[in-house]
């Protein structure tokens, strides 16, 4: 029994049907971790991108070093660090929060590069036209550069959304009951791993296909020339 659900081992099909609700509970945790991790990655990545673009090296340089460090160390190492080292200094976070934070931080290093590339891809001519019209740099950034950068950013961000989703099982090592961890526990209890693990693979496929389709839809809906302003 897990989460109050019993399993039925009379046949593979009955077994699968009986553990589906348990796996769906795990899947819901996976989705939450993905979404929160992705939001952290999007927001923190934007912060990195802005800091790295700062005209003062005293701001830009530490941001560059930090993102480089985050990118070049494994997610698992960062996760262990947050989960085991921080409590030594009195910072105790729930496992789920630690895990999603680690995911978000890891991916913020990647998303910051996507932002940078998207912003830089907006042609110099657009900046010149804005300057000739005497628009302020802030207005130019928010109303000329960002709307044109968004369609370039969306597909790459979509890839990272799927990557984050596929990295969520790493959180199982710090006891987060995401889908893979749930399936493993079910397997441990029933001595049948084939069915739950196959189901995790199938459910993952469904999730990633849906996420990819959503991103493609958004990408197709956004005009290539930028978010339209009437």
């Amino acid at each position, binding site marked *: 029994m897990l989460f109050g659900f019993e399993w039925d081992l009379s046949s593979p099909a009955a077994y699968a049907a009986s553990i589906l609700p348990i796996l769906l509970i795990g899947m819901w945790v996976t989705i939450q971790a993905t979404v929160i991790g992705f939001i952290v990655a999007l927001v923190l990545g934007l912060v990195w991108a802005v800091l790295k673009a700062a005209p003062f090296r005293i701001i830009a340089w530490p941001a560059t070093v930090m993102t480089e460090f985050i990118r070049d160390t494994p997610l698992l190492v960062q996760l262990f660090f947050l989960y085991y080292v921080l409590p030594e200094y009195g910072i105790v976070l729930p496992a789920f929060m630690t895990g999603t934070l680690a995911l978000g931080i890891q991916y913020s290093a990647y998303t910051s590069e996507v932002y940078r590339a998207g912003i830089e891809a907006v042609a110099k001519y657009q900046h010149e036209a804005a*300057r*000739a*019209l*005497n*628009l*302020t740099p802030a207005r130019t950034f928010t109303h000329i550069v960002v709307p044109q950068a968004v369609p370039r950013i969306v597909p790459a961000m979509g890839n990272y959304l799927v990557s984050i989703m596929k990295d969520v099982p790493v959180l199982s090592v710090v006891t987060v009951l995401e889908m893979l961890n749930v399936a493993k526990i079910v397997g441990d209890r029933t001595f049948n791993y084939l069915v739950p693990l196959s189901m995790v693979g199938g459910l993952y496929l469904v999730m990633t296909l849906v996420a990819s389709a959503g991103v493609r839809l958004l990408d197709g809906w956004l005009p290539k020339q*930028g978010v339209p*302003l009437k």
Partner: protein
Amino acid sequence: MNDPIIKFDKVIKRFGDLTVLDELDFEVGRGEKVSIIGPSGSGKSTVLRILMTLEGIDGGVVTVNGEPLWHEEGPDGLRPASEAHLHKMRTQLGMVFQQFNLFPHMTVLRNITEAPVKVLGLSKAEAKGRAEELLELVGLADQAQKYPHQLSGGQQQRVGIARALAMRPNVLLFDEPTSALDPELVGEVLNVIGRLAEEHDLTMLLVTHEMRFAREISDRVCFFDQGRIREEGTPEELFTDPKEDRTREFLKAVLD
């Protein structure tokens, strides 16, 4: 020239080792229509880009309406201009770009009203009224709700002209406005510029390769060569009886 609106006084501009403007002296009178012709790399476009504050200068003084453009009056003479000073000076100038440089994500109307609303502080209704008048002027009254990519190059450039005019500049700079257009679309843009030149007291500075057009609309034509004005005069003088060999060679090359 009495009280020129634009004055270049021994202006130097370098890109690395290359001297693009070599102690250039150049003046444009109020309301004057001046064409700048010359081979590529002669510094023609740089003159416009300096005036639009898209490029700084390395020496000399540029004045617009009697006030230094790239300098400010300081306690001990001229000092380099602050961004606030450039912002103030830019209100007098407008530019039409070779590549149009419209904002691709904004409708034609929004392209024209964005800066008047945000920079000049016009109400949306006022800006819209002004934009509609200007679209009428450039013959695109029915295209206000379209996006730039839905228009031909010639139409886009006419929007570019309307957008620049919406800021009510004293001086309008045209940087090879027809060079990026298919030949059959050049005429419609030149017509608009020609009509502006005839009907408005706007000062116009035009860099162009359209010799016949330069001859038609200009009060004065300047032949640029190697960062200086090699020869200048009325279109009549310059095109029919050039004094300099370089001018003659250039005109022969482009007119044949």
